[in-house]
């Protein structure tokens, strides 16, 4: 690719390192090409004689511990012969990309960012009157996302070196991971909706490939398929939204659309429809009701993938999209209320499921769904900065939690492997008391837990509090309060949203404390034989955890609220993002910055702190890790526990309501039934008379179906002529 660059010389960034922004996505793409080539070369060498070379990942989590049943030895299979190069290239391109991102960020801080920096790479596709270029849009919002994607991405890449290096598919893994980062950067840097959509689809594909990475288990491949299909339903919404934008605005540039949207009537049909279809896209990508069930299943993939794609970056793309399209959303209060309500409902619903999960990754998965709901609440009520702020802090603490759980699973799995035990390395009933064996992981994960629960001064406290305050502030005096959703006044809807959000905050504190108690406290339930093998994971894995721990602890300083102005600079992120989302945010609050009386604000913060502390205290008081028994001895649960453990049986419901009927209809009705059954039975076998009428076709042919086909053709002719004649 040799971009014929047309630098928009007028922009102050054009003279800085920011003109190299096109290198950002290119670096991981390069990594993908190198690792992909190595993967192909490696595969060709293994060849057909040894298909089981990939068969070793049968046991859930940690790869590389080749099939215990097949060859009963402790030896690892030989590392991939290109493992060294891959370990260098895979994380290397991310380090380079992050360094570049930091340089661009520094340059951006040095100039006045009133207008976004547009860099046209090449003419992409001309459609009729519309000319679409491949354009990069660099503004504070995309910069923030780029920092998260490359920064957190870099740490997770490094962690993966430790976690995955014994896997036979090691180069393929990094190829996918690099490719994912490429598409993610394309998504956040795309200057037009179609380009954003390319990234949007691409990350979906990579997620699909990575969920199914250990494909020897059917469940994994199925989970991948489910993720892809649910995402396609969402993408349908995105596509329709784009068509509507084009039909109404005649442009698909992000800036052009925002400009045109501002001239629409407030709350008009066009803006509302476009916003709702866009949001349908978001529900797929960001796992919101009703399209959320794929995300917990996606935990079948390697844990670093869960951390990067299914917690920190890809699933937040929906939040980014709403913030990106804030120009449209802010013109459609009904759509905004829908977003907020769906987000709040998801947050609440997923949190209840999280209360009763035993699989440590499933707890985190439902927690992610729930936290994503929070972000949608924020962007839904027009508090875009709060939403992005929570996106950033969540990327820190959730990546830390996932990687920490990855360490735990890694260690447990290694222990079980050494003793030839086939217990579940992800079930918390098999953990307990790990605090003494993994002290670093233990303390780091507690930091993340306190952050997500909203304990003051940890990052999650600031962002969650800002969301709650924003919702409260818009209950009166905002376009949302004046609108109504399904006959319910907007103010009431927002109160429900607020209530649901507070309730989920309480549950978040409970289930996170529960997870920590069961994993790290109490007596150890792993097993006598395994206990000597429990120890901290290697430094290549623990190192990234420490960095994330620091970010989790101090990330809140990015955007300190005015109330706590004493501890640091107020509203850093707020000022940074102001040029992008400021106008849209003000539109929702009727032109004045939302302001709550000091006392109200103090009360809200106090309540939030109380809830967080109460949740943790409740968990410590009620849950007794000592009373737990290992999974194999645990009784079947009953009643509400069973419903929660089975996630309200939503998956089963979907299968019964949508999936099975479609497949069956296709199989029985359309193919066997219509093509072969009805027509065959009715016209051929059932009616000898009709068959004879076609006797001229030769008696042999009637056993074939040519007569049938002729009948269908004739029916088609009659219908068609009917359509022409009787109009």
């Amino acid at each position: 690719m040799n971009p014929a660059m047309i630098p928009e010389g007028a922009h102050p960034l054009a003279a800085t390192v920011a003109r190299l922004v096109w290198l950002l996505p290119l670096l991981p793409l390069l990594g993908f090409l190198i690792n992909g080539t190595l993967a192909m070369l490696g595969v060709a060498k293994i060849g057909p004689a040894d298909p089981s070379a990939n068969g070793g990942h049968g046991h859930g989590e940690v790869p590389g511990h080749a099939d215990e049943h097949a060859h009963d030895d402790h030896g690892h299979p030989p590392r991939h012969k290109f493992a060294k190069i891959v370990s260098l290239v895979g994380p290397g391109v991310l380090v380079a990309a992050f360094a570049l991102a930091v340089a661009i960020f520094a340059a951006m801080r040095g100039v006045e960012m009133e207008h976004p920096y547009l860099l046209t790479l090449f003419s992409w596709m001309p459609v009729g009157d519309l000319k679409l270029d491949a354009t990069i849009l660099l503004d504070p919002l995309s910069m923030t996302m780029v920092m998260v994607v490359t920064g957190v991405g870099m740490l997770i890449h490094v962690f993966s070196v430790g976690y995955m290096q014994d896997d036979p598919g090691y180069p393929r893994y990094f190829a996918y991971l690099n490719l994912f980062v490429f598409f993610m950067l394309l998504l956040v840097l795309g200057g037009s909706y179609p380009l954003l959509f390319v990234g949007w689809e691409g990350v979906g594909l990579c997620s699909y490939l990575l969920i199914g990475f250990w494909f020897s288990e059917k469940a994994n491949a199925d989970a991948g398929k489910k993720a892809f299909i649910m995402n396609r339903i969402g993408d349908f919404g995105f596509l329709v939204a784009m068509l509507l934008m084009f039909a109404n605005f005649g442009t698909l540039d992000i800036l052009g659309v925002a400009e045109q949207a501002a001239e629409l009537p407030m709350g008009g049909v066009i803006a509302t429809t476009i916003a709702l279809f866009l949001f349908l896209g978001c529900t797929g990508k960001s796992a919101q009701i009703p399209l959320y069930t794929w995300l917990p299943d996606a935990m079948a993939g390697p844990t670093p993938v869960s951390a990067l794609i299914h917690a920190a970056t890809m699933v937040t793309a929906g939040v980014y999209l709403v913030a990106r399209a804030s120009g449209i959303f802010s013109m459609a209060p009904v759509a905004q209320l829908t977003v907020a309500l769906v987000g709040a409902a998801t947050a609440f619903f997923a949190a209840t499921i999280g209360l009763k999960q035993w699989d440590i990754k499933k707890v985190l998965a439902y927690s992610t769904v729930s936290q994503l709901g929070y972000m949608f609440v924020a962007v839904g009520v027009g508090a875009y900065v709060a939403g992005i702020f929570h996106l950033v802090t969540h990327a820190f603490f959730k990546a830390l939690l996932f990687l920490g759980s990855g360490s735990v699973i890694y260690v447990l799995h290694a222990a079980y492997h050494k003793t030839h035990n086939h217990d579940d390395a992800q079930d918390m009933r098999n953990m307990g008391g790990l605090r003494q064996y993994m002290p670093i992981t233990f303390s780091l994960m507690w930091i993340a837990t306190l952050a997500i629960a909203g304990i003051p001064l940890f990052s999650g406290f600031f962002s969650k509090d800002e969301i709650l305050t924003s919702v409260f502030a818009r209950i009166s005096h905002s376009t949302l309060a004046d609108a109504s959703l399904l006959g319910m006044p907007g103010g009431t809807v927002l109160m429900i949203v607020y209530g649901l959000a507070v309730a989920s905050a309480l549950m978040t504190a409970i289930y996170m404390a529960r997870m920590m108690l069961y994993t790290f406290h109490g007596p150890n339930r792993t097993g006598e034989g395994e206990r000597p093998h429990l120890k901290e994971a290697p430094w290549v894995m623990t190192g990234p955890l420490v960095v994330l721990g620091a970010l989790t602890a101090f990330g809140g300083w990015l955007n300190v609220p005015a109330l706590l102005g004493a501890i640091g600079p107020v509203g850093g992120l707020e000022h940074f993002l102001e040029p992008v989302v400021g106008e849209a945010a003000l539109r929702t609050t009727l032109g004045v910055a939302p302001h709550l009386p000091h006392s109200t604000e103090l009360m809200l913060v106090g309540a939030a702190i109380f809830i967080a502390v109460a949740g943790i205290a409740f968990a410590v008081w009620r849950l007794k890790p000592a009373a737990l028994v290992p999974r194999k001895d645990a009784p079947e649960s009953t009643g509400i526990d069973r419903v929660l453990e089975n996630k309200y049986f939503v998956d089963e419901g979907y299968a019964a309501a949508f999936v099975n009927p479609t497949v069956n209809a296709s199989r029985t009705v359309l193919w066997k039934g219509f093509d072969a059954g009805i027509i065959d039975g009715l016209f051929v076998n059932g009616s000898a008379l009709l068959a004879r009428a076609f006797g001229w076709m030769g008696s042999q042919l009637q056993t074939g179906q040519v007569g049938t086909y002729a009948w269908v053709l004739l029916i088609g002719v009659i219908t068609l002529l009917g359509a022409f004649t009787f109009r």
Partner: protein
Amino acid sequence: MIFDLANPSQLMQALGPDLLLIVGAIVLMLWAAWRPESDEHQRAVGRASLALVAATIAMTLWYSTRGMSSNVGVIAVDNFRWATDLICLLGAFGAIALGMEYNVRERILPAESHVLVLFATAGMMILAAARDLMIVFLGIELMSVAIYVLVGLNRRSPKAAEGSLKYFLLGAFATAFLLYGIALIYGSTGSTNLTEIGQRVVAGNFVAHPMMLAGTGLLLVGFGFKVAAAPFHMWAPDVYEGAPTPITAFMATAVKAAAFATFLRVWLEALPGMGDAWFTPIWWLAAVAMFVGNTVALSQRNLKRLLAYSSIAHSGYLLVAVATGTLGGSAAFLFYLVAYTLASYGAFAVVIAVGREGDANNDLSDYEGLWHVRPGLAIAMAVFMLSLMGFPIFGGIGFFGKWYLLMAAIEAPRPLTTLAVVLVLTSVVSAGYYLNVVRVMFMKARPDGAADPERTGSLTRGVVYATAVAILVLGLVPSRVIGWSRAGVPRAPQIQAASVDAPR
């Protein structure tokens, strides 16, 4: 240069590429019959046929760059014709290249097989040029008769014989409708010339004329059959499955392209005045084809059948372009045809590469873990599947094909918003089976004891990788093909005005 078609020598010149192909094919046929059947002879005739097709492509390209046109006559001299010719000729090239190796494996000896492809292609080129319903009929018959024989080429295969006979019988049935439709249209308007029909329909206000309506309807049936649009699709899966795979690829792409091109020309040049009458039927044909093709494909296990249903669905997509009735629609149509042809060709070439003697190994289970034994083929197949699905970047040009269709549908004077939504929705469904192929290849282990695919012949490999690379490269820089398809819309000067705002 403007050809005067009333002057025989200029008419001959205007038919230059067609005549080159026909004369060459006749010579090759004599040569093919001259020697006893053998693999060597078959290959030799194949090579000569490839050379002839290449020469015809060169001549067509040369013609297309000279900016020729003609007065009103029985044949068209315009870029739409050259564009269609090129698609069909590329299809023929692929079919012959794949056939040379496939025929050896399946022990199909007759060297005439390649010549028959040439004859069928000659029929397509005549179709592409036809500006008179009689020429349309001539072209369709010339093309179809050759295809009937080609389907039954493998005399040892009962499936092939069955498919051939079925196609022949049903084709005869459908041709009867087509011919009857032509007769009725002639009866109403007193002409078979597309341009004249177009003028008389407008002048005589034939929209409510029963004979003209019936004629248009029957013509639609005839074309619907040739392009395998539901509900006239019933033959396609059986015939596609039974025919030798290179011929299946040829039918799914070149035959469909030629039939569709004629369809579009007749509709844009002769019948825009009937827009009110045909709009709703074509709308429904498109919707039904998209729905039936995509849903039934979900339960297919045999790759050839799966691709057959997929091709029915793609007929539905292309019918959306016909339904727009605009020049923008026909540009999108040509572009889509290029994308679809490349992807289908590649997919069938992979089917050949994975298949075994006796047309075996076409089941989805034979593709399990293909990545582990033939990573190149697996990646190429993934590109074809994603392209057919309309996926960006990895689907290359396929994404733009869908994109342009959607844009054309939205921008049409009578916006086809609902149809566009149906298109998007059914392509969501199509992910269910296209993606399944990708999943099977990449995410399943190779079954124990599954033999490796045989060594892929160099020609087959060439087709696979050339199409895959073309899809990806054109997907990055589609503007060249876009410009090409824009230039390629039917341009009869006196008609343009009428067809721009056709269906009001």
